[in-house]
């Protein structure tokens, strides 16, 4: 039988692999090539300049600031999203009143699941428009309107939200978390439902409280799913382009005020499209690629644990 296996596997793989090489690997390689040139992005002509773009890149204070902002996103976004999603998933699946025999979620959990998932079906464009209304800087904004009605905000000097240098990036994070929690909630819910009920019942019989069941049973059995969620979220944190470029102030792809919410992706686009420094922008793309890849590999390695079969 053995000799028949390889043609079989090959037959299945040849088309996807060719497509993958042509549409993913080859553009990647091209980008590496362009990053070594002074390509303007507006003409096919370019000169080879070696690693100049990279040396310039690591002296560019705006790029280093953007890198820091991405790293901040990278820490806060997965942590906040996963914690919130885990908490909600636990409450919806096994967090209901104990002692009633059997394990269940809080009352109305099916309804909550739909409500929490709802932000996930909104496209990024809608999110952006929606939250620009929420964060509007005069009293027409949802937050400023409410806060000035209850007297926290002075209507003559409303809060700046996205246009505030210390606050803008956090406003973006709020949107990312708001829109992301629902998906991970459903992901974790599905994983929780595959955990046999009798494990929980045994724990209940032993007198375990909600917290104990969560940390001793749910979390270890969910570990693989959390790991996947972490990788997804880390990649989302390295991107975040659409929201930052449309919602924050600043000429050409946002990132303002004065680079305070600048991320690598917006800086890349501005250099590529607006400033005609496509080679330089490609160098940024390569840096982003390596950071993302290293992070994914590291997080998959570091969080690897003994698998529990059930």
């Amino acid at each position, binding site marked *: 039988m053995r000799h028949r296996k390889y043609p079989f596997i090959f037959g299945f793989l040849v088309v996807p692999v060719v497509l993958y090489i042509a549409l*993913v690997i080859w553009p990647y390689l091209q980008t590496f090539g362009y990053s070594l040139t002074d*390509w303007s992005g507006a003409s*096919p*002509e370019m000169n080879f300049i070696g690693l100049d773009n990279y040396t310039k890149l690591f002296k560019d204070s705006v790029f280093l600031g953007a890198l820091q902002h991405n790293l901040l996103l990278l820490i806060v976004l997965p942590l906040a999203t996963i914690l919130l999603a885990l908490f909600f998933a636990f409450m919806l699946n096994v967090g209901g009143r104990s002692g009633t025999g059997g394990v269940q979620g809080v009352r109305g959990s099916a309804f909550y699941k739909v409500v929490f998932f709802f932000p996930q079906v909104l496209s990024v464009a809608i999110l952006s428009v929606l939250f620009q209304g929420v964060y509007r800087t005069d009293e027409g904004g949802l937050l*400023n309107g409410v806060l000035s009605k209850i007297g926290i905000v002075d209507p003559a000097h409303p809060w*700046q939200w996205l*246009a505030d240098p210390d606050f803008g990036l956090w406003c973006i994070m709020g949107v990312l978390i708001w829109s992301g929690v629902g998906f991970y909630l459903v992901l974790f819910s599905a994983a929780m439902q595959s955990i046999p009920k009798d494990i929980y019942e045994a724990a209940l019989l032993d007198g375990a409280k909600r917290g104990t069941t969560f940390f001793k049973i749910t979390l270890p059995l969910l570990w693989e799913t959390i790991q996947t969620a972490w990788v997804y979220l880390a990649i989302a944190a390295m991107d975040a382009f659409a929201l930052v470029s449309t919602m924050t102030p600043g*000429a050409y792809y946002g990132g303002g005020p004065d680079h305070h919410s600048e991320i690598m992706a917006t800086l890349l686009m501005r250099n590529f499209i607006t400033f005609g420094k496509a080679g330089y922008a490609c160098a940024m793309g390569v840096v982003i690629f390596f950071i993302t890849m290293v992070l994914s590999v590291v997080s998959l390695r570091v969080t690897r644990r003994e698998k529990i079969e059930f």
Partner: protein
Amino acid sequence: MGSATEYNRRDLFKRAAAITVLAAGSSSLLAACAGGTGSSDNKSSSPAVGGDSKNPFGVKASDPLDVVIFKGGYGDDYAKAFEDMYKKTYSGANISHLGTQEISGKLQPRFNAGNPPDVIDNSGAQQMKLDVLAGAGQLADLTALLDAPYLDDPSKKIRDVLLPGTIEQGTIGDKMYSLNYVYTVYGLWYSAKLFKDKGWTAPKTWDEFITLCGTIKAAGVAPFAHQGKYPYYANYVILDLIGKQGGAELIKKINACEAAAWDDPAVLAGVSAFYKIMENDYLLPGTNGMTHTESQTAWCQGKAAFIPSGSWLENEMLASTPADFDMAFLPIPSLPGDKLPATAVRAGAGEPFIVPTKAKNKNGGLEFLRMMLTKEGSGKFAAAANSLTVLKGGIGADVQLKPGTKSSATAVDAAGTGTFNFTYPDLQTPFDTELQNATNELVNKRITPKEWVARGKAATAKKV
């Protein structure tokens, strides 16, 4: 028995998933870098000037024409009218028309592949930067167009019938690369009706302006709104104050990104005058973070008295403007010791039309531009887009203008030869971006006028 079950299936899936996620996540960034691999041959035939006065560029009637128009505030109906005019003369031409807002997205790949369209209205937020295109040798020199005969009166050349400043606006180095077709006037705008009702009179000097702002605020209206999310609108006011104070020489130096220009006392005087709006708290609450739509709508609703903008404002806000609003234009008020007269106004050609060097029907593109510069074309544009064009006396008595456009046209007449313009927003993009960031800090009172000047001076290092 070897089989696929030798592998841990779950691990396999997990790895596959991780790779897919990696690929999907980063490709959106990296795919943007895929440049063209098209041919880079330069086989553009130079137009034969001075051949036939009817057809100076030697257009072949059968050649197709590829037109791409920025479909923004002016729409693209006017361009369809131009295309009909072109077809009347070159009946065999198959014209392809694309009206879009995504100029960069649609055209960057075509420029890179060496098959750009024949004529482009390269405008809007996603325009391809002219400094970049010209630097890459992608733009046709329009000198041939300037020397071609004017269609309405072949005894004149095109260069003789353009409003002053048009050629300069499209010139990079010593060649003209873009025809800026729309004549735009910049300054402050207000509702003449609101002013009449409240008994306010439009100020002539900046001191009067600041005093009036006090009166307006006392009446419960915010004196000044601006499009804070896009700080270049506030820059119209600051740079106009500076330009009028410092005169034509200073404007030239600022446009050329000369660091020394920023040491001129006129710069600090101008920005300090502007800063009085912030010092006295005359801003519309929240305006520093508002988009152009939000702030201009608030202004149309009478929440603010003045707003800076170009003369596209009236057409842009047509739907939100009350019928009796009576939009009016005010040149930036003057400072004591101004080198330019009080009537001087920033005005000039905008909406750059370009013809790519590598266009297949480059001659047709030039001819298209020549047809735009006729009384017929200019009138059609004014009717469809409520704006003036760069053609001298281009609008006949039969075209009805709206109050704002009429008011700005009056201001241009009053200014006479005293119009000026800044070219740096089009031609020095990195410098302009930096200056916008500085202005955003200034309107939020996070930096002082002195620091703003220092940042402007530092930004000149980004000269293209």
